């Protein structure tokens, strides 16, 4: 009885495309151990596809370019695919394009794998694109590998308020931020190709969020190249503050190790280590720590053709006036966490910014703590470019180990 009713419902609702309703029903009724297969082809989807409360399910297409879920005619829902409150979910071998909001959002999922998944906005970089491509938030045990993220108006690959994360062997381009790790703990980001974004890889801690104090992030063996795209984030978004031409930006967070990356031709800042003050935003969050500490940057290769920094940003203008076309590779705002500044005015090595064995890396300390009122005035500022002040080493951070089913 029930079966026939269900079938008649599926086939009678003409406003609901058959592929979409069929897939949505599978997502609702999946059992532990199921693999939901998506056939080859491009399928037009009108509303957010959602999976909720599932354990141990694989959603598998026929290839990263073989199964395409197209949301260009989406009429409802703020995501393409939404996965909430699940355990051990694997998404692989499909592509989500032109979602009206975020492409794939996962929230409260313990064990989420994205493998050979692409998210894309076909019209290229535009402020009207959705904010995030791959978007796990408040998740645990996150694996993103062999994925491609293109043209998100915030971050192509964004992991927020999560724990135990690996992002590897993926490619991100034409986004405002290529890869962003935000308010998250224990993340390894390696083997990625991040090019042509406004900013390549960002590690941020932001205020006013329920999960804060991200830490223990390793960024290594990535190629971070030509991230010089004009910032196209809609105003109001914090990522809109990232200067075009940023390779790596570490903001207001601690315990970050950056090593063995190749950082090439990012015109404004190969690597920036800055406090939240750089945003010139105020916060009333009393539990928030706006400073960086325990940052270790070593064994990276820097290469930079002579080119002028972005002039759409105060820092770019400041750099331009001081350095013209030979912009330092590593830029530190010189704002140590006051909790770690000793009576002698020094910060112990374990809590400092340490630089070691970087190839062809020049250094700049903006010394905001001294120049805070006038830092944006290129004529009044007094900068240090001698990296001897960062001549120290730190213990390597531990490798991230995930607990995943498949």
């Amino acid at each position, binding site marked *: 009885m029930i079966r026939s009713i269900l079938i008649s419902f599926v086939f009678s609702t003409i406003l609901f495309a058959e592929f979409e309703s069929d897939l949505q029903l599978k997502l609702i009724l999946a059992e532990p151990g199921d693999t939901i297969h998506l056939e080859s082809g491009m399928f037009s989807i009108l509303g957010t596809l959602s999976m909720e409360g599932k354990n141990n399910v694989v959603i598998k297409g026929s290839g990263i370019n073989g199964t395409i879920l197209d949301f260009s005619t989406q009429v409802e829902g703020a995501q393409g695919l939404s996965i909430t409150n699940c355990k051990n979910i694997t998404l692989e071998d499909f592509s989500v394009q032109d979602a009206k909001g975020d492409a794939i959002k996962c*929230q409260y999922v313990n064990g989420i794998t994205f493998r050979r998944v692409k998210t894309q906005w076909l019209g290229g970089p535009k402020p009207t694109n*959705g904010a995030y491509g791959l978007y796990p938030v408040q998740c645990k045990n996150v694996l993103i590998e062999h994925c491609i993220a293109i043209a998100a108006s915030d971050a192509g690959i964004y992991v927020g308020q999560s724990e135990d994360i690996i992002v590897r062997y993926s490619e991100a381009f034409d986004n405002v931020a290529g890869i962003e790790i935000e308010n998250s703990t224990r993340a390894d980001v390696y083997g990625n190709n991040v090019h042509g974004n406004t900013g390549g890889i960002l590690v941020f801690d932001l205020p006013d969020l329920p999960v804060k104090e991200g830490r223990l992030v390793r960024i290594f063996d990535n190629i971070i190249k030509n991230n010089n795209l004009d910032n196209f984030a809609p105003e109001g978004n914090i990522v809109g503050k990232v200067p075009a031409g940023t390779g790596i930006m570490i903001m207001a967070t601690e315990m970050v190790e950056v090593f063995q990356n190749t950082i090439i031709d990012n015109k404004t800042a190969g690597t920036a280590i800055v406090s939240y003050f750089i945003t010139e935003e105020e916060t009333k969050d009393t539990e928030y720590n706006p400073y960086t500490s325990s940052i270790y940057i070593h064994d990276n290769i820097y290469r930079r053709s002579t080119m002028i920094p972005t002039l759409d940003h105060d820092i770019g203008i400041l750099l331009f006036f001081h350095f013209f076309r030979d912009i330092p590779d590593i830029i530190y705002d010189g704002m140590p966490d006051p909790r770690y500044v000793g009576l002698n005015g020094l910060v112990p090595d374990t809590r400092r910014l340490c630089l070691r064995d970087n190839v062809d890396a020049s250094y700049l300390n903006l010394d905001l703590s001294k120049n805070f009122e006038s830092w944006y005035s290129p004529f009044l500022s007094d900068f240090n470019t001698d990296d001897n002040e960062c001549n120290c080493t730190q213990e390597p951070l531990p490798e991230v180990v995930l607990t995943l089913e498949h």
Partner: protein
Amino acid sequence: MMISKIFSAHPVLDHALPNLSDYGFFAKPIKNHVPINEVLPYKIASPLFSDYSEKLRFIQVPVNETITHNEENELFFPVGTFLIKTFYYLNDARESKGERRLIETRLLKKTSSEWVAIPYIWKEDQTDAVLALAGGRKNVSWIHSDGKPMNVLYSVPNMNQCKSCHVKDNVQQPIGPKIRNLNIDFVYNQVSENQLQKWVKEGILDSFKDLSSLPRTVNYEDPHDGTLDQRARAWLDINCAHCHQRGGPAETSGLYLNLEEKDPSKLGVFKPPVAAGRGSGNRNYNIVPGRPEDSILEYRIASTDPGVMMPELNRKLVHHEGVKLIQEWIKAMPEGK
């Protein structure tokens, strides 16, 4: 996928009957919604906007069971309780006794483990409503309260979408039936009576020490009920706070719009957005006091773009009255940090 496999699968199917009529909530023809079998109608003080649809609400508590409550005025419903909500449109919104078209009925059933949501869609001939786990869409036309024709591609949420609003700390829950929302009068057989008092009298709700001291949400639709601030907060509470509260799905934004929230920055005052993307509308803060036109909150509730609009689900139209209320509320806030 084998349909038979589908049907052995989902725990909701232990509770879902194929047709709404199978539950015996209403006398036949059930489209008239005449309650039988201890089913009681109710309403809530400030309703959620759902594309100008009208709603009928009912509750059925198992015989000899009662709803209990605690010092914090939380309600605890006994296993087997049904909350029943039917969405419909009057053909002409100006004639409340006129012809109407029933669209969907949503059941929330309290099971031994949790609440389950069970969606039904009404047949075109209005004889019954049929189980629709995957939701659906319906084209609906009507004459609006201003006399102008309106239409909408009405969306019946699927089971997952039910939960995406009805969830707190990952557990599915009712939204409307709170003590402060129920603490109003309802007309039962032409006699007006406080709903909580009626429920106590009917024996489905434990009595209160002092009913007159219980809180009540103002009705945002009534300009004479409460202050502008209270009405705006009531609107935000019912339309936004199911997600935007601690433990709700939008807690990642740090924006909390539930009635209990007191911290202005958590309510959005000079709070920058977190993951709004183009939802920011090129505005910098959720609320800029005195300036609705610069406030992201105003932008998003006035939008119908799926990637921008709030709430994300179950709305295709702008709630003009609600937007106006929020505009006035923001405008009345003293300017400056």
